[in-house]
């Protein structure tokens, strides 16, 4: 049973369809990146999984059941939805205390999470005076309060400084390594590519792809960049093979359909010195834009 699942989830606001017959599942023990352009329906989907909005049709399930039936919600699921959802006049510590008290979580745990997110120094200041990064940390502290089995984080990296990003990355990896379920939305693709194992991509409220990160970025046709003493001759020699060859600027070739070993051996037979032989990992960003572009073309 997947920890989180949406089945044919549809959410309409008047005539606008925010989420359109969306289905996917999120498993434990890995970080799942939830990607899509602005307005794709990421937040709506997350809110449905948290029981904060009711689907127009379809269902959102937490551990196989609708979220409203959770018996111990804060220990089941922790969420950081938006970094601005605090009463500006309440201190960070008191915000966490109100949640801890409501869920029957001991006060000592509030101090623990404050330390974890390194907010213990500012905990008694009113949230009004917090920077975006501090609010983001407070939201994460609230999500971690019940040591939940599932984390749902909406753009948690927003406003974090580089150390904060690194800290977040480690935290998410630790949580997943500990067998927990982590669903994290982001528009910072480079950040996701360093954290996520699994990707769920949506656009216009519809699923575009669900795949592992390795498959997604690796599945770009396996191009190899080649520089050599005589690239014209090498290019001609390669062109005679099965692979396809393209110029990458004046000095390099992009070769696909042939692996690096074959290229190296061919160059040796031809007596051409190789200067570079680099299999190309396409970035998540390139793939993402490519895919979203395809969708646009198809739409």
């Amino acid at each position, binding site marked *: 049973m997947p920890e989180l699942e949406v089945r044919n989830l549809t959410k309409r606001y008047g005539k606008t369809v925010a989420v359109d017959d969306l289905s996917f599942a999120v498993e434990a023990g890995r970080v799942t990146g939830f990607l899509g352009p602005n307005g794709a329906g990421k937040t709506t989907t997350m809110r449905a999984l948290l029981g904060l909005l009711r689907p127009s049709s379809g269902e959102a399930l937490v551990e196989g059941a609708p979220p409203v039936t959770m018996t111990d919600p804060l220990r089941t699921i922790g969420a950081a939805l938006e970094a601005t959802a*605090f009463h500006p006049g309440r201190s960070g510590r008191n915000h966490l205390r109100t949640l801890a008290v409501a869920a029957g979580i001991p006060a000592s745990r509030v101090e623990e999470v404050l330390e974890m997110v390194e907010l213990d120094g500012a905990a008694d200041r009113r949230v009004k005076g917090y920077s975006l990064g501090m609010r983001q940390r407070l939201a994460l502290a609230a999500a971690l309060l019940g040591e939940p089995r599932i984390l749902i984080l909406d753009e948690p990296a927003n406003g974090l400084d580089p150390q904060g990003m690194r800290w977040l990355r480690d935290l998410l990896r630790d949580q997943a390594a500990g067998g927990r379920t982590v669903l994290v939305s982001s528009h910072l693709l480079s950040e996701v590519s360093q954290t996520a194992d699994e990707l769920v991509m949506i656009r216009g409220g519809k699923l575009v792809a669900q795949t592992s990160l390795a498959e997604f970025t690796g599945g770009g046709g396996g191009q190899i960049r080649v520089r050599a003493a005589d690239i014209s001759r090498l290019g001609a020699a390669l062109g005679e093979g099965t692979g396809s060859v393209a110029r990458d600027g004046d000095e390099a070739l992009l070769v696909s359909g042939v692996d690096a070993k074959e290229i190296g051996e061919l160059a040796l037979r031809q007596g051409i010195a190789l200067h570079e032989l680099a299999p190309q990992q396409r970035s998540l960003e390139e793939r993402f834009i490519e895919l979203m572009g395809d969708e646009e073309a198809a739409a």
Partner: protein
Amino acid sequence: MNLLRSEWLKLWTTRTTWVMLGVALFGEALFAGLYTGLASIADIEGPAAEPEGLETVATGVGLLLVLILVLGVLTITTEFRHGTSSSTFLVSPPRYPVLLAKLGALLLVGLVAGLAYVVVNGGLAVALFADRGGDLPPAGDLASVYAGVVASYAILAAFGLGVGAIVRNQVGAIIAAIAFFFVLSPLPELLPGSIGDYFPAQAIGSLHGNPEGDANLGQVEGGLVLGAWAATLVALGTLLVCRRDVAE
């Protein structure tokens, strides 16, 4: 029980509650003090000494009533306004227990505010009457007026919660609550018959043991009528909060 403690904590961890109740009590003291202080003993001990004495003692109830009503509204509208409703309802996905907890916390605040009012106002009254040599109204009458005042604070806080839960928008809800309670609900009094007695403005007069009004209801009946209004609004508000999406 945990939710109630949480709501109680929420109320006292922002300055709003402290400032509002502080201002209200200070205002009451000032107002009651001035009124009583400036009134001549002759006024107080006029032919109808008892009722006027009572009226004098219980004067200036209104300011705290308005503020308690607004506090009730804010208890729920700030959650929607600042988005804390998401984390609040995540702790308790069936949302009605949160509303019940807020109701409980507000009834308690109403009682605390009412008791504070009694202490301030009663202390002042005793001091002033002693100073002027007048006689305090009978203790029994005084107690029933004060009991009515305390109850009205608690009920009005609940009234505000109901309106806030229905309207959600902070400014809109405050205006709606005040307009309904203080402007619209006194209007049916103008109608012939006793229908006006069953609207909040007149009912609260009855609950206060309104000495000069023409209320036909007793204190207890007035309290029940007012309570029924508050209960209906809270029930409707709770139903709506449970049905509607929590989103900004």
